[in-house]
C-alpha cells in the first residue's frame, strides 16, 4: 500500500504483461501561489488541484543530515524526516524514493517451464518491463544498480539455485577485516573487482599512473551473468539492469594490475566514467516493451541428492524480485580510497569511508516480484 494519498490501482496491458500499479496524479487541492506573498496586490486566489515540486529521484544522500546541513545550509531538508506534509505526502525523500521505485518495474515468471526433472536443466523465463517511460535505471545508469534476485527451492525449502545474491564478507581494502552482518554494503557476485585509487605524485601528473582507475582486481564471480548473457548468449547468471562502462585497451597499453603489455586490444569493464572510452547503454531495462531473461537451471541428479542426503520434493518454487541499490559498493569503496589520505590528493577529503558506506548505502529490495511453481517429474 502506497504511503502517498492513494487513488487505487490501475490495471493495463504492456505487451503481453498485465500490469497493476498505483494510480498516479492524485493531486492535492491548494493555492497555486502563496496569497499575499507570491501575488500582486493580494490578488484573490481560488484553491485548485496543484502539483508539488519535490522532484523526487532514485538517489538519497550518502551523508548524515548534520553533515548535509553543515555543507549545504541549515534549512536543507532531512532526507529521512518523519511525517507527512500538509498535503499528506511523505516528508522524507527516502520514503518518496521508495514509493517511486515500487511503481517503476514489473516482473512476471508466467512463461517458465511448467515441469522439471531431477538431473536435467529447465528454463526459468523472467519477463520484466520498465514503466517509467524511460530505461531503468536512467541518469547515471552505469552505476545505479537494479537487478533480479532469483531463487529456486524445492517443496522442503532446499535452495537449489540463487542469482542476484550477496554474501557478507570482509573488505580489507577499506579496513573492514571481518564480516559486519550487513548485506547492503556487499557487491553482487557476478564480478569481483577492486579499482586502483591512485596515489599522490608530486608534482601532479594526469593519467593512470597517479590517478589510478584501472582494475587492481578483476575476475568473474560464480553469478557471472551480464558479460555471459551479452557476449556469449548463455542463459545463465545475474540479470543486471546496469549499463556498462568499458575501457578498450589498445596494443601497447598495460592493464595496470600486472606487468603485461598488451599486444592486442582488450575490452574490460571499468568503474570510472572518466577512464572509460566506451559505454554500453543497452543493459538497462527497456521501457514499455517487456524483455525476457532466461535462466537455464541444472537440478541435482540422483547421485548428488544421495550425497546431500536429500530427495527433491516437488513442486519447485521459483521466486523473482527486482532490487535497487543506488551505487555498487565497489564503486563507493573506490571513492573512499581515491579521496582518502593515500589517494591522489595526498590527504583525506572526508567524503566517504567504510563507515559511511555501512550506514547510508541502503538497498531498496523487492520493488516488484513474482512467484511460480514448477512440477517435478521423477
Amino acid at each position: 500500500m502506497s504511503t502517498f494519498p492513494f487513488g487505487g490501482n490501475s490495471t493495463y496491458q504492456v505487451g503481453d504483461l498485465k500490469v497493476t500499479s498505483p494510480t498516479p496524479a492524485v493531486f492535492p487541492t491548494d493555492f497555486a501561489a502563496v496569497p499575499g506573498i507570491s501575488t500582486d496586490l493580494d490578488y484573490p486566489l481560488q484553491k485548485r488541484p496543484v502539483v508539488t515540486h519535490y522532484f523526487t529521484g532514485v538517489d538519497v544522500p550518502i551523508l548524515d543530515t548534520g553533515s548535509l546541513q553543515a555543507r549545504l545550509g541549515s534549512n536543507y531538508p532531512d532526507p529521512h524526516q518523519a511525517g507527512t506534509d500538509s498535503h499528506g505526502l511523505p516528508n522524507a525523500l527516502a520514503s518518496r524514493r521508495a514509493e517511486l521505485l515500487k511503481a517503476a518495474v514489473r516482473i512476471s515468471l508466467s512463461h517458465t517451464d511448467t515441469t522439471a526433472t531431477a538431473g536435467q536443466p529447465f528454463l526459468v523465463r523472467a519477463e520484466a518491463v520498465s514503466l517509467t517511460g524511460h530505461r531503468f535505471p536512467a541518469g547515471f545508469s552505469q552505476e545505479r544498480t537494479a537487478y533480479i534476485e532469483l531463487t529456486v527451492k524445492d517443496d522442503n525449502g532446499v535452495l537449489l539455485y540463487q542469482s542476484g545474491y550477496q554474501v557478507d564478507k570482509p573488505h580489507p581494502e577499506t579496513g573492514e577485516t571481518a564480516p559486519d552482518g550487513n548485506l547492503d554494503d556487499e557487491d553482487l557476485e557476478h564480478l569481483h573487482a577492486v579499482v586502483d585509487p591512485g596515489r599522490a605524485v608530486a608534482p601532479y601528473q594526469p593519467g593512470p599512473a597517479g590517478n589510478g582507475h584501472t582494475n587492481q582486481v578483476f575476475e568473474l564471480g560464480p553469478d557471472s551473468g551480464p558479460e555471459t548473457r551479452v557476449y556469449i548468449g548463455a542463459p545463465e547468471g545475474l540479470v543486471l539492469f546496469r549499463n556498462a562502462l568499458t575501457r578498450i585497451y589498445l596494443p601497447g597499453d598495460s592493464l595496470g594490475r600486472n606487468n603485461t603489455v598488451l599486444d592486442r586490444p582488450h575490452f574490460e569493464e571499468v568503474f570510472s566514467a572518466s577512464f572509460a572510452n566506451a559505454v554500453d547503454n543497452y543493459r538497462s531495462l527497456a521501457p514499455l516493451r517487456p524483455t525476457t531473461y532466461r535462466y537455464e537451471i541444472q537440478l541435482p541428479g540422483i547421485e548428488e541428492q544421495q550425497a546431500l542426503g536429500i530427495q527433491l520434493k516437488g513442486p519447485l518454487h521459483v521466486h523473482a524480485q527486482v532490487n535497487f541499490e543506488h551505487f555498487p559498493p565497489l564503486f563507493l569503496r573506490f571513492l573512499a580510497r581515491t579521496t582518502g589520505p593515500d589517494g591522489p590528493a595526498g590527504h583525506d577529503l572526508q567524503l566517504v569511508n567504510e563507515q559511511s558506506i555501512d550506514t547510508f548505502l541502503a538497498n531498496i529490495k523487492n520493488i516488484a516480484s513474482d512467484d511460480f511453481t514448477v512440477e517435478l517429474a521423477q
Partner: protein
Amino acid sequence: MTRCSLLVLALSSLSLAQTGVFQAANPHYPNRNPFYFEGKIDYEKLGIASPGNAWEYAQRGIHRQDDLEDIAGAVADYRESLSLNSLTEGSCQIVTSVPAQDFGKLDPPPCMFTVRLRLGYLLMRGTPEEAITLFQEVLQIDPQRLEVNALIGAAYQTSASRAKGSERRRLYSQAIAAYQAELALSPVTAQTTALTGDEANNAHTHWALAGIYEKLEEPASAIAEYELYLKATKWHSDVYPWRIPIAQKKIGLLRAALPQ
C-alpha cells in the same frame, strides 16, 4: 562581419568533427576506436529491414536468439555474419598495433568477438570441435578476455565424454590446459588477498577441474581442486549452493580412497 566569422567558425568545427581531431591537443582525451559495438542493441531501434553487413547480421542473430528463442535462425545469421567478417578469407583483421592516424578507418575492419562467442556457444553441445575453433579465434582477437578459455575447456569436456581410451584422456588433458589458462588470466596474487581476503577465485573452473580429475582417477588433484573450490566460495557462495556440501563430502571420500 560577425555573421561571416560565425560561418567560418561553424565550418571549421564541422571540419574538425569530421576528421575526428576534436581534443587532438589533449593527450589524455580517449582516442576514437575502430571497433564494432560489441554487445546487444535493442533490435527495434536499429530499423534493419534486411541485414546488409556482418554487424547487422550479428545483431539480428542476437535478436533471434535472445528475444525470439529462434536458435536455427540465430545460427544462420551468425554464420552469415562470419562469412563477411572472416579471418581465413581476409575480410577482417586482428589489430596488433595502433595505427598512427585514421584509426577509425581500418580496412579490412577488426574481427568481432561477440558473434564468434555466441555461435560457438550454440554449437558447443552438437559440434564442440567447431565451437573450439571459434573460441580460439576470439583468443586471437583478445587473448585477455575472461571466460573464453573456460568455454574451450567445457567444449573439450563434451568431446572427451564422447571419446574412449587414449583419445578420451587426450581430450580431458586439453580441457585441463584450457581451464588452467582461464585461471592464469585472473590469478590470486598477494595483492588480491590483501585487498579482498580471497585465497582462491573462479569457483566454477575449480569445480570443473575437480570433476575431470575424478574421471581421470587422479584423486590427489581432484582433492586439491575441490579445496580451491571451497576457498573460492568461502566469501562468494555459488549459484548452486548445494555444490558446497558435496565438495566437502567428496574431499572426505577421496581422501579415504588415497593409498596410505
